[in-house]
């Protein structure tokens, strides 16, 4: 009996020590931008409990759509428009976020969610599962596992969910490594850090390796599209349940500037898929910002985000399409 108590105490001590270390690593505000994005978004929700309009999705969904401008367009006070976007939050992450809203009993008159073609591509980064694990209510975990079944490697997602549930730091692996790096290299001088980031190869080589990876390259495999479709379908269903009107905004990305038949076919598939999903629900309307939308590479500041001119053009088109959608209701 005494031995068992000793063993139990040892076990408790080790697990407690690991738990403390885990908490220390994963709760620090200086690491883990995915974690902090979720925290920041939650802080915004808390500040606007009476919001009637919400914008969901990633930064590509929100950065061109200021709350004040949208409020003017909808003729509602700015204070009633909630910026619910989270940086890097694609369909799966937004589904988890909306489940949390639904569980909290939040209701809206109008919600917007935007997605582009590249978001049909799935790269199984740990951060995607981290976002879902952070927000999905415990009761919805079986639903999340069901969505993972659509992926090419469902067990990869399930295993990551298990790992992140057991250790918060595991989900922030990249951030933990960055923190170790900062500690090792003395974070005091940001210029030295920038120099090192650009010169890390110099110790090994006399010339840098030339990267040949094309931007936004993706195979758009059937599994990848099926997983994203499953999340979008669930997301639209939940948005329709918490809001009177749902606007699904189809956004351009830089591949829109490519005129080859392969990309044209992919964009057509993107439009058809989302139109079909929207038509299945009575209060979901597609706002197509792809057709006749921004398609010049010069109007993008990177692969997904628009520059000032691109944003202006997109807002103009959005205004027209929203008016048409409102008129057609």
């Amino acid at each position, binding site marked *: 009996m005494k031995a068992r108590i000793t063993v139990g105490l040892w*076990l408790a001590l080790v697990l407690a020590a*690991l738990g403390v270390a885990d908490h220390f690593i994963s709760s620090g505000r200086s690491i883990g931008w995915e974690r902090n994005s979720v925290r920041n978004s939650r802080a915004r929700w808390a500040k606007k409990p009476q919001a009637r309009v919400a914008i969901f999705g990633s930064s590509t969904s929100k950065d061109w759509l200021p709350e004040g401008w949208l409020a003017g367009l909808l003729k509602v006070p700015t204070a009633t428009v909630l910026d619910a976007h989270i940086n890097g939050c694609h369909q799966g992450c937004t589904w988890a976020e909306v489940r949390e809203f639904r569980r909290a009993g939040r209701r809206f008159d109008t919600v917007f969610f935007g997605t582009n073609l590249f978001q049909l591509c799935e790269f199984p980064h740990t951060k995607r599962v981290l976002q879902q694990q952070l927000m999905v209510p415990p009761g919805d975990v079986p639903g999340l596992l069901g969505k993972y079944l659509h992926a090419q490697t469902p*067990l990869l997602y399930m295993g990551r969910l298990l*790992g992140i549930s057991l250790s918060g730091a595991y989900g922030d692996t990249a951030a933990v490594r960055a923190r170790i790096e900062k500690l090792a*290299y003395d974070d005091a001088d940001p210029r030295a850090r920038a120099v090192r980031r650009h010169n890390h190869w110099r*110790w090994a080589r006399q010339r840098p390796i030339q990267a040949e990876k094309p931007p936004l390259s993706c195979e758009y495999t059937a599994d990848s599209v099926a997983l994203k479709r499953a999340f979008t379908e669930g997301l639209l269903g939940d948005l329709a349940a918490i809001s009177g009107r749902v606007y699904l905004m189809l956004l351009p990305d830089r591949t829109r500037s490519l005129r080859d038949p392969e990309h044209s076919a992919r964009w057509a598939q993107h439009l058809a898929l989302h139109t079909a999903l929207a038509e299945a629900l009575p209060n979901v309307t597609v706002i197509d910002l792809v057709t006749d939308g921004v398609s010049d590479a010069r109007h993008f500041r990177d692969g997904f985000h628009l520059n000032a001119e691109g944003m202006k053009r997109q807002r103009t088109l959005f205004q027209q399409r929203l008016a048409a959608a409102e008129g057609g209701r």
Partner: protein
Amino acid sequence: MVFTTPQFVAFFVLFFGAWLALPRRARKPLLLVGSYLFYGSWNPHFLWLIFGSTLLDFAVGRAVHRSADPRRRKQLVTLSVVGNLGVLAFFKYFDFFVGSAVQGLNALGLDASAPVLEVVLPVGISFYTFQTMSYTIDIYRGQLEPSDDFVDFALYVSFFPQLVAGPIERAKHLLPQLKDLAQNRADWSGLGLIALGAFKKVAIADNMAALVELTYTQPEQAWAPALWIGTYAFAIQIYCDFSGYSDIAVGLGRLMGLDIIQNFRSPYAAAGPSEFWRRWHISLSSWLRDYLYIPLGGNRGGWVGVRRNLMLTMLLGGLWHGAAWNFVLWGFWHGALLIAFRAERLNAWGARLAQGWTRLPTALVRRLVFFHLVALGWALFRAESLADCATLFGALLSPDALAWGPWLQAVTASGEAPYLLGMGAVALTVFISQNLWAVGSDDVVARVWRGPVGLRVAFTATLIYAAAVLSPEAPPPFIYFQF
């Protein structure tokens, strides 16, 4: 499904949960289904291949045992060897041999071309074909009774912990354990081995890979001293990668109450090639000894014969690793080392050296010198082409490798000195620990498991936690999966 990925963790949690929950009599079908699911997750089409190989050797093994006619027995064992090596030759070596022949003819000025089939290499084929062949050969030699249960034999061939990268098990060791699967009791020290293996692979090998990648990609662009850094890093990477995999395999086996042989025993503590091969990839080196070196004549056959046998064994051992000339060259390098270290003069020189010094420094110097010889071999192993082999050897052995001045300036300009020092400390720790305690992972875990339960929990939990946190975002797969 790589052992250190979340999907394998999820797979094993489900599998082992069922293992513990279901009645003991269900263990065999569960393990067989689990093993085939595991293998099918790489490429389901190749399930037919492993099933065919199983069927062939199960039938041939029984036929060999039944037959009293020596000629027929020989025909049957030849059928097994040809069948297994034929599959291996087609899937692993077809493009290599045809491509090499065409290149050779083109070099002679003959216009030749051949279809390149771009055959996909079934994962683990080199490992399980060696297992099935050794089963039939052992029966032929009268050293083993054939299995009378197809499920037992199918489990022996497809047992998922060691299916894709070994250790290469012998039937006389594993089959009786699989036969009594229902009676086996879990050995929880397997958890310690799994944790140690995961730490070696994820926290050490996967991080060393970045150093290797940067120096070995286009080696002609690399600083010569940096190539030595990359070579040391690869020596540590391949050890931690492969022995980490083996530790996990042995650990998984133990959780099912099965004893899998140890594959590594501090190989960098070796002071010579014979000792190295008794410590490195033990299951392959003992396989090559028993089924290739000894049948070739082994240590009999005179001065020339023994050296021929050594060289042939190592050349084929090199080729077993991969269908490329750099692996053949690596085999040649180790064959040459084995031959050189058999030289009487060299041994006498070593003995004189040992007399002059105290035992420890002499042993350390000999081990350090031999480690560098092994590391040069790893340069050939890691090279991406024969041209790279020449570049690497040229740079590693050139006077430029000692020109540290300009290189240290480059290190300063890169700002990576703390990183390199940190990685160097890790590599040195691995090397020194092997030389201080020249033991295998099982000995380390056995020692921990003799301690209090708290120590076992602390050991396991800390290593797993460290592995999870120190894992790169996109870790490379196990090196030996390509073989």
